[in-house]
């Protein structure tokens, strides 16, 4: 079996399986954790705490005005490359064909030249973000292997994808194989590191918001 056959075949199957096992495991584990008993009287009804949770999901999407000076640039940077990644992953025709083969349905995409442009922009932002993490003293102190490896594996997918589309660096079948293998690697790493924020972000904001609402605090 050649490298491309392996990447699209057994490697992808195992990677998808590990991804599903891992994500469900962490999600169920997190959901079943017991919260510390709150002996206070609730300030709002149960429905009120749910509503508070939902409000928090929205309100945490952008920093409070007091903090924008310090964190605004970082937030904007983060939003930009996330949007870039979503566009490239979900609206590039060969990706739509791939996801269609997994899910059984497809959707319209964007012209490939536009996707290439967005990919290059996203990669640039990615490098900027790494630069920021390494030069900012606070971020540098807080960063660990998880942060850097999650960045690396995602950047690898981006770089191999661009190389494959541009047909530079190696024969196409090797480039495509490396791209798919790096996606397999991403899938395997995903449930065990900070990339899980993709699934946790909204539930954890909701829980925090609900708890705050119960205490009568602003969310």
């Amino acid at each position, binding site marked *: 079996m*050649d490298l491309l056959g392996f990447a699209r*075949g057994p490697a992808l199957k195992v990677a998808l399986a590990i991804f599903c096992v891992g994500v*469900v495991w962490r999600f169920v584990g997190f959901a079943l954790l017991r919260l510390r*008993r709150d002996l206070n009287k609730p300030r709002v009804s*149960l429905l009120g705490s749910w509503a508070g949770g939902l409000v928090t999901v929205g309100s945490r999407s952008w920093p409070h005005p007091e903090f924008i000076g310090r964190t605004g640039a970082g937030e904007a940077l983060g939003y930009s490359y996330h949007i870039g990644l979503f566009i490239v992953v979900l609206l590039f025709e060969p990706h739509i064909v791939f996801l269609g*083969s*997994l899910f059984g349905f497809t959707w319209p995409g*964007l012209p490939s030249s536009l996707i290439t442009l967005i990919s290059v922009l996203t990669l640039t932002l990615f490098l900027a973000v790494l630069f920021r993490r390494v030069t900012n003293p606070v971020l540098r102190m807080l960063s660990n292997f998880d942060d850097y490896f999650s960045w690396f594996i995602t950047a690898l997918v981006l770089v191999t994808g661009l190389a494959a589309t541009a047909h530079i660096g190696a024969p*196409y079948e090797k480039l*495509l194989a490396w791209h798919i293998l790096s996606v397999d690697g991403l899938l395997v790493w995903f449930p065990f590191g900070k990339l899980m924020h993709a699934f946790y972000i909204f539930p954890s904001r909701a829980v925090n918001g609900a708890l705050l609402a119960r205490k009568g605090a602003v969310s």
Partner: protein
Amino acid sequence: MTQGTSELTVGEMLLKYGISRRSFIKFCTATASAMALPPWMGPAMAEQLRNSPRPSVVYLSFQECTGCAESLTRSFAPTIENLIFNTISLDYNDTLMAAAGEAAESARTKAMQDNFGKYVLVVDGSVPTGAGGAYCAAGGRSAVDILREAAKGAAAIVCVGTCASFGGIPFADPNPTTAWPVSGIISDKPIINVSGCPPMPEVITGTLLQFISTGQVPDLDEHRRPKVFFGNTIHDRCYRRPFYDQGKFAKSFDDEGARNGWCLYELGCKGPTTYNACATIKWNGGTSFPIQSGHGCIGCSEPGFWDKGSFYSALSTAAWGKAGEVAPRQVGKLAAGAAAVGVALGVASAGVSRLRQRPSEPHGNEPKGG
């Protein structure tokens, strides 16, 4: 077709068939040009060959469909490629020769003896070793034995077609006859793989001509195919490439996009991973090639192409499962199974965590968030 090697030189033989010296120079020049050889090589090859005795070629056919021989011999009008048959002394070819039975076999053994160490062995079809080689036998001898004997005195072996080069369709899953490519049986002779299902006639002719006139094996890629013909992918030279670059893909056969000549990537075209000369030289005297006719490339010159998934699923699709096929339902089953395992692990982990949390707490109202 002659019996044994002729005493006449190539030039004298050609004249006998009414083919002038200039026609032969033209044939060699055109072939050299197609192979991107320096232009002076055309007349040089012609001169070299004209004054030599006709090189002996023994053509053995094993587990094959004869499509490769057909590709070379059939044409709409007599093509200049057919001149190869006047250049070589084709001492054995069971499809084309008039003789049969003992007469044919003795012609072969005599040619192999008379030209020991010098004849070119051309093979098409794969070689089965199952059931002691009984799946392919001629004249009471298995293909494996015939091949091993013929290889002993060959100057080089030219494998014509994907079956001889890589095993082809007999080699595909489940390979019931235990078929092997020639390179799986013979390891001590130079082998040139001219793959394709079938290979292009110009590629067969060009490779043979270059070998018999220079006596040297051409530059080969990692699969032992002549780089001059197999150095680029179909995709590299495809005239529909601008549509690929723009992301204009046909979604189904004969839809609006297909009628406008859009890229056939989503219809399963394997052009990007297939190395062959179809997009430049084209088929049937330069008439067309599969993509130009609206069907994606099936990758027929690549090893194992029969087992690389459907000809109609794109290169970017998932491809595990039997013969590279996977359907969304199988993906669903995999995900469901994995999720079940995940739930079990999640419950177990949560259980362990909860035990580690403060054990004796009276139960009270807890917000339903967690």
